[in-house]
């Protein structure tokens, strides 16, 4: 399962992700200077966002498997008697010399360019010489009589044309970065965006990785990004989706592609007609307001629910939405009614499974809706979240200030990026501030109602307080007007949120009235930049208005900090209102400063010093913190020189020098300076970007700037609570599928999360030292009190203890049946002192006793049939040999588990269950997914005497190596690595039978077919008599499998979704998922033919298991095959080679695996021309692989130093009779392979000088799996009725008679059966046994 990430955006435009398995969040894309993101909409593999410049960006999460696309071009030629094959002979009706495969498009190698700057070519064009698994010589040419005919690798007499394929790979190189999406095909006035939403990843019938990407431009138009898929992560074009005359401000896309949107008027729209053929739908449908005067602001779609926020922050829940049905059923898309929920929020976000996250309207804190599940989508309560940043990030500084250090870097780089660096000396103290806690701050200011302008934007941040001049005040008003006329506000980007939030606007206006009359010619409105650009538009309006004497230049400043490109009025002096002088007062004493301010009659904002940052202040005597922000350009460069003054050049993050003396010196400097600019806004931005930083280094004084101008000199200062880093403005949960909220650490309340830390690990409650002390004391106590008195009689006589219950057991024979028996387990007192199972039964009324010694049992396992869950098998050597294990059925599955657990503990010593699995063991999995290990004993045993002990975990494939490093794959293709622990599973992690166990999850998909038959008049129906199959069946039609009767594999599994029609069933399906055929024995095809009489469609349902086992998850990269080297290693630090095949056929190699570090570090890609299905590493690091088309490849040059080898060589010839190989296992010298039909093949004549061998030799059929070991030992898992035996599915056999003369062996010897799925004997070494 891919990583589940919750995406968060803070007010500074930083983006963070929080993985469900982690406790802390991490910043993403921070190395990319400058790009700040305002909004994010994410899915599992990527995120789309709106940047500070209102452009669309996409962030493709870095994966181990690169995005690699092959471009193919065919070169075509025709034969002519006079010149042979040549492109000149092509007829006019022929395809052109260079074309695509079908020939309908002409394309040349030169014309084919990379789709965007984020792609790179891997190498130059080359000819593909592989033709259906064979190598075509003669330059890769394929011949045919004409172009649209069958091709063959050999020229024949009638071959008139030939073609060959050229390949070139290109790679997407911008993973882990924000990549800007091209907007060339959008008209210029539309190419700024205000909202984006992605979803649709669960829409069936789409290419892999498909995403439905919807955006809204500043003009309210809707565009979709088309053709976004795994090989084209950026999409390839924009398409305008008409919205009539309605302008939209917010949009949301569900996992199944459903789209809802909000208009400027707060009206909610739903897109109808979305289905698998028409992913962008057909029409919009208006949804009535829930209440007369309720206007919506934002909506968030999950799969089956929709939550909306009104402009007042009220929460509405839409009932009746069903994402899976929305493709067919309009009502499921529209839902039924609105329900008002409690809480007030300014942002809301849903996960694909309808979990809800929100940001509080007033407290701006993150909230999670508890109790949301499929049956109660509304949930129970809002629970505050305590999100914490990655500790590694914070630990390099003792205080919270550390955050700002990085932050500062970000800021500076950002500015560098955005503007031309001016080379101004840095480190100039321009601002000092203490950051009051937001809440305090707000409170204070509202109560004071002094001259301050506050814009408590819903999205954001604190408040900003500014002293405005009269003129400015009017400007501000104008500006607000502009805000309310969004459409007219062309010049600046407009934020929908702000627009919608009338309440906030009114709030602003109210505050405006409080603006001081102070006559400050140079001051401009300082507006805290929320991540919404409304602020910027405000400012823009202000400054562009031109009425303000001081500001007539618009400096495009990206306040990357907050969001988007914000045009901020910069005070430039070209209209003569240059402040000639500024008085700057710096005080190291807050009180005096405050006094001064009081005298000035300016706004004073009192804040409590209990804010977390204030501890850092040097002077803590005063509980009043003044936040003054002034910005002074001490640079010699006159800011007149350009309207587009780069803000960055004009002020500087105070790096470390905000001490008083430096301030004073600055003051002096200013005294002599001719030009002086004040950039309050920018300062605020800066401050908000570097809140802690500033504090940590500055004395808590403040600077008041009193610029002189022709008119009057007044002080100007602004109060800015800087924005904390963790001030959230936007969430995206679409990439975060939360199966079980209680398992996600950051969703737990603080106390929960701290107390229930991994209960499997006692050391978290008590330190190992303390435990050792206590244990020592106890041991000492027992020595003193007990051991010295061992001669004394025991008070309690010890007897063995028994477990007893009634069961049924299966009696083999002519009249095989289940018989009632009573089973008793007697166990010795001390662990491992033996014991026995006694079975009492009464054949023909006569009591008989049958005993099985625990030490005789070689294996105990449950059987795979989900309908027989309470049945378990007891294998003894004799019974294994006869393939008649004891079958016991208890009354319930729980009781079976208890018995298994007891028996396993009782026999733990025999099976070596209480120790790490040693190198040299044979690992296997059963059809149930249980994990078994045979650890060789010192003495040689016969194969049917081998002990098989169980380990926890649920796995499909296991591969081990001679060094003992063992990897495994789950049913969901997740790779796991063996931790060296034991136990888990039945014992759970908490028992003493377990060590080093972790949570493990797996997912299975269960299928069933719905069958219908065609009758005249009635048409297709399942009513009536289906003579040849059940109406619900397996793929053969012969087994009854109705949806209702299908059981979970065991009671530990849970359904994770409902039954769904599988539109991706093999063989393609029609619009409703049907496939047609003449009868059930014939192949099915997607369109009904005239002779078709039956049709079927496949349904699937996923289920999920959560278990524990000694397995460690190695990351999100999913694999279909793995192989570890079988060559012995010489030191524990030597690198061990592991190759894997990714889910889409990439060959990967794991770096950094050693015995000490079995999980390794990272994957690197091994380039292949074809997608692979299997790889295997044989002796001397010979790597073998099988491609999807059945071609076999050999790669030399692999070693512990060079993990990837040199190059692929194709192994020819392929096996005869159209056998398509799918799996290969390479031993010390031999290579064995399986084909699609279950035939086993042996590669003949492999010699050191000719390592590819000469040909494939058929060995036998009905083989499911083969594993070849270090000494060429071969073990297989067979299908039912293997050979002449009438045994069941999943028998394990060993090849006998393998000698140097007969390397393919002579026969098979049964090991154990049945019910096995996979075996790896690649670590097993008989020779070591012999020595011991």
């Amino acid at each position, binding site marked *: 399962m891919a990583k589940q990430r919750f995406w968060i955006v803070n007010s500074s435009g930083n983006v963070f992700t929080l993985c469900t398995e982690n406790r802390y969040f991490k910043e993403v894309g921070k190395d990319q200077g400058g790009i700040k993101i305002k909004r994010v909409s994410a899915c599992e593999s990527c995120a789309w966002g709106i940047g500070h410049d209102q452009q669309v960006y996409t962030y493709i999460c870095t994966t181990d498997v690169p995005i690699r696309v092959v471009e193919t071009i065919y070169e075509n030629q025709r034969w002519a008697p006079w010149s042979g094959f040549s492109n000149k002979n092509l007829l006019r009706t022929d395809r052109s010399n260079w074309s695509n495969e079908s020939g309908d498009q002409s394309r040349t190698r030169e014309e084919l360019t990379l789709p965007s700057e984020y792609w790179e070519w891997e190498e130059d064009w080359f000819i593909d010489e592989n033709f259906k698994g064979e190598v075509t010589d003669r330059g890769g040419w394929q011949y045919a009589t004409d172009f649209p005919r069958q091709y063959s690798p050999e020229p024949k007499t009638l071959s008139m044309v030939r073609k060959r394929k050229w390949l070139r790979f290109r790679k997407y190189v911008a993973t882990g970065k924000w990549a800007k999406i091209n907007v060339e095909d959008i008209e210029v006035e539309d190419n700024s965006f205000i909202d984006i939403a992605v979803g649709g990843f669960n829409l069936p019938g789409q290419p892999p990785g498909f995403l439905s990407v919807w955006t809204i431009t500043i003009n309210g138009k809707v565009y979709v990004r088309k053709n976004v898929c795994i090989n084209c992560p950026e999409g390839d074009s924009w398409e305008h989706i008409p919205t009539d005359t309605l302008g939209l401000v917010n949009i949301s896309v569900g996992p199944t592609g459903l789209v809802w949107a909000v208009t400027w008027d707060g009206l909610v729209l739903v897109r109808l007609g979305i289905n698998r053929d028409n992913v962008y739908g057909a029409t919009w449908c208006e949804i009535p307001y829930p209440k007369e005067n309720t206007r919506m602001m934002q909506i968030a779609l999950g799969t089956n629910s929709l939550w909306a926020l009104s402009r007042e922050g009220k929460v509405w829940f839409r009932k009746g939405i069903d994402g899976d049905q929305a493709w067919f059923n309009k009502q499921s898309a529209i839902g039924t009614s609105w329900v008002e929920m409690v809480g007030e929020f300014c942002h809301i976000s849903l996960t694909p499974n309808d979990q809800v996250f929100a940001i509080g309207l007033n407290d701006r804190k993150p909230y999670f809706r508890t109790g949301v599940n499929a049956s109660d989508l509304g949930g129970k309560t809002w629970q505050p979240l305590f999100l914490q940043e990655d500790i590694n990030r914070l630990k390099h500084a003792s205080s919270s200030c550390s955050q700002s250090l990085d932050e500062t870097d970000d800021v500076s780089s950002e500015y560098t990026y955005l503007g031309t660096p001016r080379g101004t000396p840095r480190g100039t103290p321009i601002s000092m501030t203490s950051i009051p806690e937001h809440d305090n701050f707000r409170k204070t200011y509202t109560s004071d109602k002094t001259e301050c302008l506050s814009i408590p934007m819903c999205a954001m941040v604190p408040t900003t307080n500014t002293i405005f001049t009269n003129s400015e005040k009017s400007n501000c008003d104008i500006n607000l007007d502009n805000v309310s006329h969004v459409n007219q506000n062309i010049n600046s980007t407009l934020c929908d949120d702000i627009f919608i939030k009338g309440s906030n606007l009114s709030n602003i206006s109210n505050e405006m009235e409080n603006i001081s009359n102070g006559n400050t010619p140079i001051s401009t409105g300082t507006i805290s930049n929320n991540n919404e650009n409304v602020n910027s538009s405000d400012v823009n309006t202000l400054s562009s208005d031109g009425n303000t004497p001081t500001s007539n230049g618009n400096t495009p400043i990206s306040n990357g900090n907050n969001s988007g490109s914000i045009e901020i009025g910069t005070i430039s002096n070209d209209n003569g209102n240059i402040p000639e002088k500024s008085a700057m007062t710096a005080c190291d004493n807050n009180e005096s400063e405050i006094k001064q301010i009081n005298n000035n009659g300016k706004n004073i904002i009192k804040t409590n010093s209990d804010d977390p940052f204030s501890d850092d202040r040097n002077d803590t005597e005063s509980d009043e913190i003044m936040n003054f922000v002034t910005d002074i350009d001490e640079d010699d460069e006159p800011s007149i020189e350009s309207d587009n003054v780069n803000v960055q050049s004009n002020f500087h993050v105070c790096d470390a020098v905000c001490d008083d003396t430096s301030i004073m010196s600055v003051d002096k400097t200013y005294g002599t300076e001719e030009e002086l600019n004040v950039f309050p806004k920018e300062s605020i931005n800066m401050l908000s970007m570097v809140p802690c930083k500033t504090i940590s280094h500055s004395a808590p004084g403040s600077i008041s700037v009193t610029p002189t101008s022709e008119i009057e000199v007044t002080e100007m200062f602004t109060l800015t609570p800087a924005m904390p880093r963790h001030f959230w403005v936007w969430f995206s949960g679409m990439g975060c599928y939360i199966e079980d909220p*209680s398992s996600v650490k950051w969703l737990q309340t*603080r*106390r*929960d999360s*701290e*107390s*229930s830390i991994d*209960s*499997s690990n*006692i050391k978290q*409650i*008590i330190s190992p030292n*303390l*435990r050792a*002390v*206590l*244990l020592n*004391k*106890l*041991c*000492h*106590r*027992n020595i*003193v*009190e*007990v051991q*010295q*008195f*061992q001669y*004394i*009689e*025991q*008070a*309690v006589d*010890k*007897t063995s*203890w028994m477990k007893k219950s009634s069961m049924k057991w299966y009696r083999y024979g002519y009249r095989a049946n289940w018989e009632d028996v009573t089973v008793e387990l007697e166990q010795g007192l001390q662990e491992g002192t033996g014991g026995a199972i006694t079975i009492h039964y009464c054949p023909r009324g006569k009591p008989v006793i049958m005993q099985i010694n625990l030490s005789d049992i070689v294996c105990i396992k449950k059987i795979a049939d989900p309908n027989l869950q309470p049945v378990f098998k007891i294998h003894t050597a004799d019974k294994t040999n006869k393939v008649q294990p004891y079958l016991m059925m208890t009354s319930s599955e729980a009781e079976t588990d208890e018995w298994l657990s007891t028996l396993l*503990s009782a026999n733990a010593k025999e099976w070596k269950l209480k120790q790490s699995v040693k190198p040299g063991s044979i690992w296997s999995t059963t059809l149930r997914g249980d994990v078994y290990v045979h650890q060789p004993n010192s003495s040689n045993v016969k194969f049917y005497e081998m002990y098989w002990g169980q380990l926890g975990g649920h796995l499909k494939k296991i591969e081990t190596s001679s060094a003992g490093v063992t990897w495994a794959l789950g049913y969901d293709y997740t790779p796991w690595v063996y931790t060296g622990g034991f136990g888990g599973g039945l014992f759970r992690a*908490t*028992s*003493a039978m377990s060590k080093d166990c972790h949570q493990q999850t797996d997912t299975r998909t269960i299928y069933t077919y719905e069958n219908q038959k065609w009758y005249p008049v009635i048409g297709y129906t399942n009513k009536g008599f289906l003579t040849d199959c059940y109406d619900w069946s397996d793929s053969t039609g012969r087994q009854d499998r109705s949806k209702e009767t299908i059981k979970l594999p065991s009671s530990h599994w849970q359904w994770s979704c409902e039954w769904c029609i599988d539109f991706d069933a093999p063989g393609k399906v029609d619009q409703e998922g049907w496939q047609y055929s003449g009868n059930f024995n014939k192949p099915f095809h997607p369109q009904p033919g005239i002779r078709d009489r039956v049709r079927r469609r496949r349904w699937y349902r996923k289920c999920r298991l959560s278990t524990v086992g000694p397995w460690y998850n190695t990351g999100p990269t999913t694999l279909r095959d793995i192989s570890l080297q079988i060559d012995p290693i010489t030191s524990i630090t030597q690198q061990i080679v592991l190759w894997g095949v990714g889910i889409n056929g990439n060959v990967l190699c794991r770096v950094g695996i050693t015995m000490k570090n079995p999980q390794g570090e990272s994957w690197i890609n091994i380039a292949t021309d074809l997608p692979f299905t299997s790889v295997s590493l044989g002796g001397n690091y010979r790597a073998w692989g099988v491609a999807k088309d059945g071609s076999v490849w050999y790669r030399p040059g692999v070693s512990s130093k060079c993990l990837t080898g040199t190059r692929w060589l194709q192994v020819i010839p392929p096996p005869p009779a159209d056998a398509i190989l799918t799996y290969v296992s390479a031993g010390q010298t031999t290579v064995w392979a399986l084909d699609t039909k279950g035939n086993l093949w042996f590669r003949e004549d492999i010699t050191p000088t000719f390592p590819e061998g000469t040909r494939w030799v058929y060995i036998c059929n009905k083989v499911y799996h083969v594993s070849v070991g270090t000494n060429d030992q071969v073990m297989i898992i067979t299908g039912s009725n293997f050979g002449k035996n009438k045994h069941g599915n999943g028998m394990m056999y060993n090849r006998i008679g393998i000698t140097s003369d007969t390397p393919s062996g002579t026969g098979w010897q049964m090991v154990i059966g049945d019910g096995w799925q996979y075996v790896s004997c690649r670590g097993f070494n008989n020779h070591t046994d012999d020595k011991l």
Partner: protein
Amino acid sequence: MAEDREVLREIWEGRIPVCFTLAEEEVYSGEQPDPYYLLVPRQSYFPLVTDKVQRHFVQSVDPEKHGEMWLEYEGQPLKWHYPVGVLFDLFTNGNCLPWKITAHFQGFPEEELLHCPSKEAIESHFMSVVKEADALKHRGQLVNNMQKKDHKQLWTGLQNDKFDQFWSVNKKLMESSGEDMFKYIPYRIYQIDRPYIQKLFRPVTEEGDYNTLADLLKSVNGGESTDNREEVLKNRRVLIQGIEPPLETPVLWLSEHLSYPDNFLHICIVNKIKNES
């Protein structure tokens, strides 16, 4: 969840060598019978293990005056409904081995001891304490959800000194992860000549830290200032299961591992042994 089997085993294996003698004044048939030596499990209750003792002494006492057997140590009647280990820690200070206990068949101290009519009485006492403990830990949910046979298995496990039998059920009661986090710690503090102390005490502080044994003692001593407490503790020993756990040990861990089978953490505060200090 209590899962540190090594510790649990060690606790379970705790035995006390006891030397039972018949009270001299009750010897009826001439000679003083030989003392009876027995290794008594700390976790058990005396009436569960003293059948042999009773049989040994019963020939020597006056059949006329023969009543229920009761035990006494240095003049102190031993309450049968306290686990053996608690009685030992509380009265002996751990320094007299084997533990010399006097058996009486006469003069039952009605005011100090409960009668123990049968093993069922012990069982019902034991189960009621287990339930009380679970009421504190999990609001009684776990023990009430158990089947009767699980209750029986707990008891027989204790009675027959079967660690696995007992713990395979008891581990469910000791569940303390996630939702089943202990609400309160079931504990009792014993001091000689005083009734035991039992108060509500949470395993985790408001701040999410684990409360330690020191915290627990502090909370019990209530108003006493820290200095005073330290002063008091200087002359005292805090014994749990016969050992003095470091005061910084989290109480949750102690409760999970050092509780007696009745699921209570029995803490004995005794005077320091003179000759040790």
